[in-house]
């Protein structure tokens, strides 16, 4: 498979991409860190089988436990729940939310952008006006209002990550749509599109089999960087109490109460934030390296 890049009509083999990517040690390190974090989320509770919601009734006195006390490797939070077990549970939630929200955002954005760019005319006009509207909506306030309404109308426990995925995904697709539309505008004028049309391919086939694979490079970069943004967004929502609801752990809501105990138990505040920082830093480095490797014109 070859990936054609924008207008220049030169093709880049996988080997070239890999060679360019290897030049970025930080991107490689980021990729490794992300894999490790995913393994930590997926298999952490097999290696460290502690219930993230269980309260240590033997040792807990109303304050966070220091690391090491009662067998808690990283100590406990202000409710006597094991911090490491909650970090693992939080990793599962935060990473799943981010991946699914980004998949949703990219699917919506790519489809709308592809249709707008391929057909042009009034279809393009109205899809782009819709994009303008969604882009002009203040993201964080509206997300907060929406999650507040959903959690007030339904019972608290049902504000699961499904709701958050859908809300984030359906408000963050415009950049992807613009990106795909821009590549489609030039791709639809190219000879191979003409050829596909000449042999009688339908619109759907041309869009998905011929044009989309050629527009994939910027989408991959956009998707990678979006994961970091969504992780930050979800953690902010949860931190403010409008995202993942307790007792379900997420890196964001683990920090919600950390401020009150920060003088006596700084480690409760340091650990979850450090996880968020490591993941989003790794993803940003990875995305940057990927952009250089597969889509050097984008810089």
């Amino acid at each position: 498979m070859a990936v054609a890049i924008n207008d220049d009509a030169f093709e880049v083999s996988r080997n070239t991409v890999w060679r360019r990517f290897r030049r970025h040690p930080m991107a490689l390190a980021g990729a490794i860190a992300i894999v490790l974090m995913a393994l930590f989320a997926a298999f952490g509770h097999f290696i460290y089988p502690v219930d993230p919601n269980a309260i240590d009734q033997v040792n807990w006195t109303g304050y966070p436990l220091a690391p090491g006390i009662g067998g808690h490797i990283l100590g406990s939070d202000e409710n006597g729940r094991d911090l490491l077990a909650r970090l693992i549970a939080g990793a599962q939630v935060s990473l799943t939310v981010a991946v699914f929200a980004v998949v949703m955002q990219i699917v919506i954005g790519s489809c709308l952008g592809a249709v707008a760019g391929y057909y042009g005319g009034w279809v393009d006009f109205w899809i782009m006006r819709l994009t303008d509207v969604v882009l002009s909506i203040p993201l964080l306030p509206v997300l907060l209002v929406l999650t507040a309404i959903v959690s007030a109308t339904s019972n608290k426990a049902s504000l699961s990550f499904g709701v958050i995925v859908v809300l984030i995904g359906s408000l963050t697709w415009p950049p992807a749509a613009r990106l795909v539309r821009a590549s489609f505008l030039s791709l639809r004028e190219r000879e191979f599109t003409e050829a596909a049309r000449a042999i009688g391919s339908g619109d759907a086939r041309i869009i998905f089999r011929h044009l989309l694979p050629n527009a994939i490079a910027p989408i991959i970069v956009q998707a990678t960087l979006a994961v970091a943004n969504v992780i930050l967004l979800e953690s902010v929502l949860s931190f403010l109490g409008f995202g993942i609801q307790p007792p379900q752990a997420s890196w964001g809501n683990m920090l919600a109460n950390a401020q009150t105990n920060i003088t006596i138990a700084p480690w409760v505040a340091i650990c979850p934030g450090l996880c968020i920082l490591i993941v989003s830093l790794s993803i940003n480095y990875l995305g940057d390296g990927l952009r250089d490797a597969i889509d050097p014109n984008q810089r």
Partner: protein
Amino acid sequence: MLSFVVRRIFQSIPLLLLISMILFGIISQAPGGPLTPYLQNPHITEADIARLKHNLGLDQPVPIQYLHWLWQVVRGDFGYSTSNSESVMQAILDRLPFTLELMVTAIGVALIVGVCFGILSAIKQYSWVDFTITTLAFFGQSMPVFWFALMVQLAFSVNGFTCCGYHIALPSAGHSSGEDSGFGDRIVHLILPAAVLSVLYLAQFSRFMRSSMLEVIHSDYIRTASAKGLTRFNVVMRHAFRNALIPLVTIIALTIPDLVGGAIVTERIFAWGGMGSLFIDALGQFDFALLMGFMCLSAVFVVLSNLAADVCYAWLDPRVKYT
């Protein structure tokens, strides 16, 4: 030029109307609506609630309520804030100065430092200076702001730190110690929240400036300027810097809405009491009118600053045509 601006303004009116419709539609789904504070009051009977609902027009269909709200807004009245017991306009005007104080400081510092960092790392590309600045920018971009704020509080405010023989503990909450506190006191309160915010903006600005500067530096007219024998300082500052600033207009325009929207998270952690805190308080009580006012104001600023960016861009760069 003038006709372009006028046309763009007229184009943004339907956009804003549509956004306000969507926002109104969302908020009107809130349970209890603007009467939530009264529902918990034992002295207010159900008959009173029904009467209030009727008086406020809340028993009418949502589209009628929207038209009613829109007519009020057109006359400059954003309604009555139930969580602050004053008009929405008054509530916003009371808090806006604090938010402006914080945001202007943070963005101003970030802009100056970010532009300098961006130029430095572009003209010293791949040196250790460039590497340090780029790394810092990556950290700033990836930092969860609330956590960074907590860490800054932990480092500079909780236990304090020792500097030049003095023990200093910076205040971690509020915008001043009291009503009639002096200028110095307000500055001291401003340091931590403004620093936290400016690091985030700094990351954006310096990365953007770096790539914009790199693009300019490798263009033909810069080579010409160097070939003429101009000093490196002259080439960088008089020829490259000015042109590299143009794309920065876009990213500055993106931050203008933050001036009124405030930094919801940072304001909350530092108990700043500006627009962000106003919004979160209103959200807790479903203060219908205030939420609507806040979000519409933000949307207006988003649309206007995009417009301003386009106009400035076309004005600064003669190659861009108005369409």
